[in-house]
């Protein structure tokens, strides 16, 4: 058994912590940050497989690069949306963002 299991376990821990944050935090910014954490956990997996996978290759690293790029774009748009929402609602509390249920 190589280190792969340990990396995957670490990724799982981070992913679950991030998930918990997404589900429970009220502050929209923390929610966004938690999402970033989850994405990072995934990246860790990709990179770990790129080294310890059955056929090591650089594809995993490249994939994680794309993923990071998309995450950055997501963060930018997310913050922009948040600010637009904040302007309308004067709060960053996600409890107040319940237009879906109306």
């Amino acid at each position, binding site marked *: 058994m190589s280190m792969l299991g340990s990396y995957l376990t670490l990724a799982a821990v981070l992913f679950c912590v991030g*998930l918990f944050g997404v589900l429970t935090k009220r502050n929209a910014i923390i929610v966004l940050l938690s999402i970033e954490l989850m994405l990072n956990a995934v990246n860790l997996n990709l990179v770990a497989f790129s080294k310890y996978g059955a056929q090591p290759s650089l594809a995993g690293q490249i994939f994680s690069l794309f993923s990071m790029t998309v995450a950055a774009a997501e963060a930018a748009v997310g913050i922009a949306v948040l600010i637009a929402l904040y302007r309308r609602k004067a709060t960053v509390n996600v409890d107040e*963002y319940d237009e*879906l*249920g109306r």
Partner: protein
Amino acid sequence: MSSVFSQYAWLVPAFPVAAFAILTALGRSLSRAGAVIATIASLASFILSLIIAIERIGQNAEDYVGGIDWLRTGAVNISAGYEVTNLTSLMLVVVTLVALLVNLYSFGYMAGDGRISVFYAYVALFTASMLGLVLADNLAILYICWELVGVCSFLLIGFWYQKPEARAAAKKAFIVTRVGDLGLLIAILLLFWYMPGHALDFASIHNVFDTQSGIVSMSITTLIALLIFVGAVGKSGQFPLHVWLPDAMEGPTPISALIHAATMVAAGVFLVVRTFDIFEASSAAMTVVAVIGAFTAIFAATIGLAQNDIKRILAYSTVSQLGYMMLALGVGSVSAAMFHLFTHAFFKALLFLGAGSVIHAIHTQDIREMGGLGRRMKVTAWTFGIGALALSGIPPFSGFWSKEAILTAALEGDHPWLFIVGVVTAFFTALYMARLFFLAFAGKPRGNAEQAAHAKESPAVMTIPMIVLAALAVVSGFVQTPFKDWLGEWLTGEASSHGASGLVLVASIAASLLGLYLGWLAFVRGTLRPDAVSSRLPWLSRLLERKYYIDELYQLVFAGGLRGLGRALAVFDEAVVDGAVRLTGYSVRALGRLNTKLQNGQIQTYGLAAILAAVILVLAIAGRRFW
């Protein structure tokens, strides 16, 4: 000898059927013309049955069986057949004769009624069904006619439908007899599956139970016999199903004469006679028949003592006399039973027609309001007197001979207790008839003036049937005397002259005379106070007057029980069954409401639900390997 006319026996019920069809189709427009049509039809039936009967007298006539396939399914193949034997030809004559006379009589009795054609239609249907019952060659067809006569009886009891009492009486008659019919139905089902070849015709029954005994086991035989007897008990008003018959007097009086005295109620006796082979095969069943018959005879006679309604007295008398017939059957004498049925048909029809004549004249049925009618209604009084004497068993009237035959059979059959009961009943019979006759026809009028003014003899169309019946009540007893057992031989085909038993003759004559004498003392001479018994034993007279409280008991137990059960089940149906349905609906709705709450618009709740669901899904799919 070949029976020329017997093969046309199916025409006998066909005439009244045709009359019924015509009257029903044309409806009320016929009015009195309908009565004429029905009477002509019954006359035709009577003539044909008379011819058939005469044809069969004397020689050893062959029985004739004919019919068509009626119901064919699988194992069942029931034919609509008819069978002419000496027994059925005798019944045919009795039924058609009484029907004819009642048709005639009703011309006068029902003259003012607007629904006279409906009345005649019902009577025609009844006559047809009764004749069908008599002619039927198998139990299934007999059962159908059996139910049809029941429904005609029901319709005619309720003929004056506006009266709530008539409605109640009709309902009661139908339902109580239906209890008996149920017994007969189950008996038929039993017979069907136990008879070899699923035969239900009387010839096969005779073969199986008489000649090849042992095919059907003893216990089943007893069961079948008892169930058939239950049917007979219902129809013939035997204890404990007698309650409907006195109430049936709500119907028009000619109907009481035809259906509830002469013919339909005797159908029970006739049924037992037809299936007598089954009874004979089981001594237990015979005992039950004899005991029930004897008990009913004395039981009804005692009730008859305390009644005041002229028709009810006669009704209880009918119940009592039918008990005699059952007693005769129970001790094994078919001929005595049939003989009594034969004579009883005439004198009881006569008594009812007489009573009808009285009611027609003074419009009351309470004998306490009558009195002194003998002077104003001579024909009625004389004929009624003849009927009363015949019923009381005074020689040489017909009732004496038939009652004597029954008592002889009881004594010879080694049933001394039943014999004693019979003699005591004869005493009671004479007593209540004396009370009835003397209260109604002797003494001074006790009713109001209007009634007295109305009291005049009925028209000839009513008195002629009474005279004919009176003549028959006198002479019909001579067909079977202790000295010449002609009827018994003809019916059973065996010479069974039982000879005169001095004990029986003396006992029965003595009992009857004693009853008449006591009645005369009490109600004419006045030497014996009529209320001698009731003042000393008030509970006894009340018990008799209230008919042993049997009606009240049934009302409480059956009617009340059914009503209670119905209410309880209604609550159950509403609360439990429907409640379960509503609960299901409610819980689905509640689940829906719960789900709505989950739909609160917050993305975190959705996410949580998705995660939990995913976890459960994974556990359910991947976790299967652990189970």
